[in-house]
Each structure stands twice: as structure tokens, then as C-alpha cells.
């Protein structure tokens, strides 16, 4: 049952040290504000799951909060590598990082299987690749009709899933629109889901087949305008591509990174995100 909470309270209530957390968003609707709140609260020893662990996982890893990362593409899309993640994997700074590496197809299927209440996902994948040699969570299963060998991976069932959405109504029903990624699956697969939204409205007033999370699938809703920045929210503001490009030199240097985190995350609150999307608003 959705409760309307401050982001601070929602994170404090639901996320514990040692939990498995998914912050999902496929380029669109990445829950930056929620990740920053987790960093401020210093919740550590996390296992984090995400298909495309871009800036927010670079930041969580760089701050030493992550024990294990389950992922399929660790890059800054269109810009390059994730330098904090690299530093953790290559040099163990600020701590060593366990990784469980998959393909996108595998993780998308693993979220789907989690939402579907299944213990594993079955798909055609990893054919001829080296990934099964380095990941014991990639196995085979044989089709009992055709004899074909298919791939199987464990389903993903996070303790807490964080997503950002367009808006909620007063009952707590949540609307996703545009590039919806794997967020619905990540929410339905999780024990608890925390959703930041641009706004709360009286009526969602949506198309008949809209992607809606009913209020009883969500634990907490937090109003954080701009909460996806520098990612974007369909119909609200555009992706701040320049910020993604500017991240690269900051992340390349340990001190520059720490200084940036101090100034832009540790000493700030969720309310700064509204300011960050000024000038990026989408004309309707």
C-alpha cells in the first residue's frame, strides 16, 4: 500500500545495510535523487542490480557503499567508461567490488522472471560467449520437446527497487510513460518499491493501456521534481546530455570525484533537483 513519504523517510524505512537494491531506469527516468539520498544516509554493503549502471552506480561504488554489482553494461552511454567502477574493479579503490556480469537479454529476462514469481529465467542466449565461464549463475536448461539447450539465469528479486516516474494520483497509482525499460518488472519483483515522482495529481487521466503501477504494488511515493536529472522525464524535461559528458573528467580523478560528491550530494537535499532541470523543460 503506497504511503506518501519524504525521500529521507522512505529510504530510512525500507533500505538496510546489506540489502539487494535495484535502481532502474533505462536511460530515461533514472532515479538519481533516490540514489543520492542513499549515499547521504551512507547505507552500505549493498548488492546493487542494474542493466546499465551509469552515473549513479559510479557514484555509489565510488563512495564505497557497494559490495557486489550485478549488471550487463557498465558504461556512460555515448561518452565512455565508468571511471569509478573501473577504479574499483581494476584497483580495489575505495574497496574491492564483486561483480556478477550478464548480458542485457539475461538481465531483462531475470527481472521478468522476478515479476512473474519464477525462480529462474529461460531464454536463448550466451551462445558461444565467454560469459558463462566467469559467471556461475549462467546455466543451461534443455527444452523437453525440441532438445534445444537454452540459457537459464536466476530471477532478480530485490529487497528494494527504486524508480522515478512521471506522476502519481492521490491513491498512489503511478504512471510510467515513454521508454519504460524494466521498471515495472523491477517493482513487481521487489519486496518493497520506492517511487519518486515529478508530481501528485488528482486524476492520472491516462490512455486505456497505460503502464500503471497500482498503489498496492508500491511501498512509498516521494514527490521529487527533477528527481531523474541528468536523466529525463518524458513530457517534463529533456536529458541533460552535457552533464553526462561533463561527468567523465570528474570521475576520472579520485579527488575531483570526492569534492564533487561533497558539494553536489552530501551537502544537498532532494529539493535541489527541481533547480537542476530549469531550462530543460519540454514544451508541450
Amino acid at each position, binding site marked *: 500500500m503506497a504511503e506518501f513519504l519524504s525521500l529521507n523517510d522512505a529510504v530510512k524505512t525500507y533500505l538496510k545495510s546489506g540489502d539487494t537494491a535495484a535502481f532502474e531506469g*533505462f*536511460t*530515461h527516468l533514472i532515479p538519481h535523487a533516490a540514489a543520492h539520498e542513499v549515499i547521504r544516509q551512507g547505507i552500505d554493503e549493498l548488492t546493487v542490480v542494474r*542493466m*546499465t549502471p551509469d552515473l549513479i552506480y559510479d557514484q555509489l561504488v565510488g563512495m564505497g557503499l557497494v559490495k557486489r554489482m550485478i549488471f*550487463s*553494461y*557498465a*558504461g556512460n*552511454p*555515448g*561518452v565512455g*567508461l*565508468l571511471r569509478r*567502477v573501473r577504479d574499483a*574493479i*581494476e584497483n580495489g579503490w575505495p574497496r574491492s567490488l564483486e561483480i556478477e*556480469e*550478464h*548480458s*542485457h*537479454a539475461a538481465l*531483462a*529476462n531475470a*527481472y*521478468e522472471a522476478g515479476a512473474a514469481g519464477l525462480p529462474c529465467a529461460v*531464454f*536463448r*542466449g*550466451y*551462445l*558461444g*560467449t*565467454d*560469459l558463462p565461464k*566467469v559467471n556461475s549463475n549462467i546455466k543451461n536448461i534443455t527444452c523437453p520437446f525440441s532438445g*534445444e*539447450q537454452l540459457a537459464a539465469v536466476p530471477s532478480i528479486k530485490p529487497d528494494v527497487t527504486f524508480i522515478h516516474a512521471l506522476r502519481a494520483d492521490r491513491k498512489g497509482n503511478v504512471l510510467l510513460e*515513454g*521508454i*519504460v*525499460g*524494466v521498471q*515495472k*518488472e523491477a517493482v513487481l519483483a521487489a519486496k518493497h518499491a520506492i517511487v519518486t515522482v515529478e508530481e501528485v495529481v488528482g486524476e492520472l487521466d491516462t490512455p486505456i493501456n497505460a503502464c500503471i503501477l497500482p498503489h498496492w504494488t508500491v511501498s512509498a511515493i516521494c514527490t521529487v521534481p527533477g528527481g531523474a536529472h541528468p536523466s*529525463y522525464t*518524458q513530457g517534463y524535461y*529533456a*536529458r*541533460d*546530455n*552535457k552533464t*553526462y*559528458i561533463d561527468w567523465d573528467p570528474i570521475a576520472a580523478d579520485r579527488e575531483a570525484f570526492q569534492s564533487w560528491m561533497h558539494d553536489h550530494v552530501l551537502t544537498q537535499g532532494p529539493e535541489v533537483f527541481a533547480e537542476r532541470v530549469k*531550462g*530543460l*523543460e*519540454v*514544451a*508541450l
Partner: protein
Amino acid sequence: MSELSFTPDEMMAIAASRALTNTDVCFVGIGPPSAACNIARLTHAPDITLIYESGTIGTAPDVLPLSIGDGELCDTALTTVPVTEMFRYWLQGGKITVGFLGAAQIDRFANINTTVIGEYDNPAVRLPGGGGAPEIASSSQQIYITMKQSKRGFVEKLDFLTSFGHGEGGDHRARLGIPTNGPTLLITDLAIWRPDPVTKEMTVVSLHAGTTKERVQQTVSWDVRFSDDLQETPVPTEEELSVLRALKARTAAAHAGKRLETA
């Protein structure tokens, strides 16, 4: 504008664009593939279907996306589907005619590494990883690869096999039960390569204008095979170049800073 006033990068994108047709359904990666696919759409293949792994089907972006999920892709798409559906119905379901891939390392049988340089457990460089590529490589009807040639990239042996090309050559794909054609085209800044029909070793079939066999060999770690019927790649036309440059200019302006979108 003189005949040769274009860069190798431009030649690469334009040569790749020419391989696409109006009836292709392309699974587009970011970078050179995205440029090539959109030049095709803006020139000879206006009805081509471009699909990005973020779920956007039938996109027609005005500027090149920085990521595979920029708003531009969704705003201009026929429709946008969940990512699980994209990988299950559209890719694994066999609907993609051409999957476009790039690579950090490639070998003579067009196997690809985008995972690590060095050892997996103790890498010299940790690369982003496979993303969609391992299954794009096995489920698309054919694979086109674009990358610049260099001895660091065109290697005798991959440090890690992220996406399967022709394996050890010959019928290796069929032996693994992979029914698709795999890499049928490799387009670089210097040449066009296609697999030998029998051995599946990638073979240079066309040199870009101004390039020599020697130059190609100098950027490749193995002994390069050249086709007996080696062609010269036609230089870019005025239209191709102007479309590409206008697209790049719009893209650069859009990514340079905050802008007010007019959706």
C-alpha cells in the same frame, strides 16, 4: 568540394549506410552504427525500420542520440515497448534483419570483445561489457560491424569473447546451434570486409579511396586476406556527405548544453 575532401570516419559511416535497405529492420547501437543507420534513412532508405534496445521501434531522430534511450528516439518512434519485450519478441523472436555492433577487439573470424583488456579477474582495462551484443550477435539475421582499424583492436586472439562471430570459422555457428548468419559485413575507416563463404575468415573486398593493402595490413595483427576481386569503395556523394554533416552539426549543437526542446 573536391572528390576526396572527406574523413575516414565519414567514409566509414557512409559505406555502412549503403549496405542498408528500405526493408531492413535494424537493431542500432550507439556511435558509428547510429550515424550509418540514420544516413541510410535520410538518403536511399526512407522506410527503413530503426530499433534501439531501449524499446523504441521505428524511430526517426532529427539528431543522433547520445544514449540508446534519448527522448528524441521515443518522441519520433512508431511505438515504444518495454525492454523485456524488446529482447524477447523483437530480437530473440527473429524480427531483426541487421544487428549493428562495434567492438574494442575483433579477430579474423569477427568475434568481438567489449568486456576487458587483460585478464577478466584482474583486468588492465575494464570495458563496459556486453550489453545487448551477445544476443544481438546470435539472434539478428545478420550482423554488420563498424570499427576503426588498429593493431590494438584487430588482434590475433581476443582477451575475452563477448559476442560470437564465426568462432573458429567454417560451420562453427551451425555446430553451436546458432541458426543466423552472423557477421556478413565489416566496415572500417579503411576498407570493407566480408567473410569467406567457406572458411568464414573476414576478407577485404573493397578498399576505400586513397587506402592501400599495405596500410590495411599495418593496422591488423594477423595476415590479412584480400579478395581476388578487390574493389575500390565509391567515394561519398555530395548528398551523402551533406546529410551526414548536417546530422552531425545538429547533434553537436543539441548535446553542447541545455536546450529547450520543442516536442
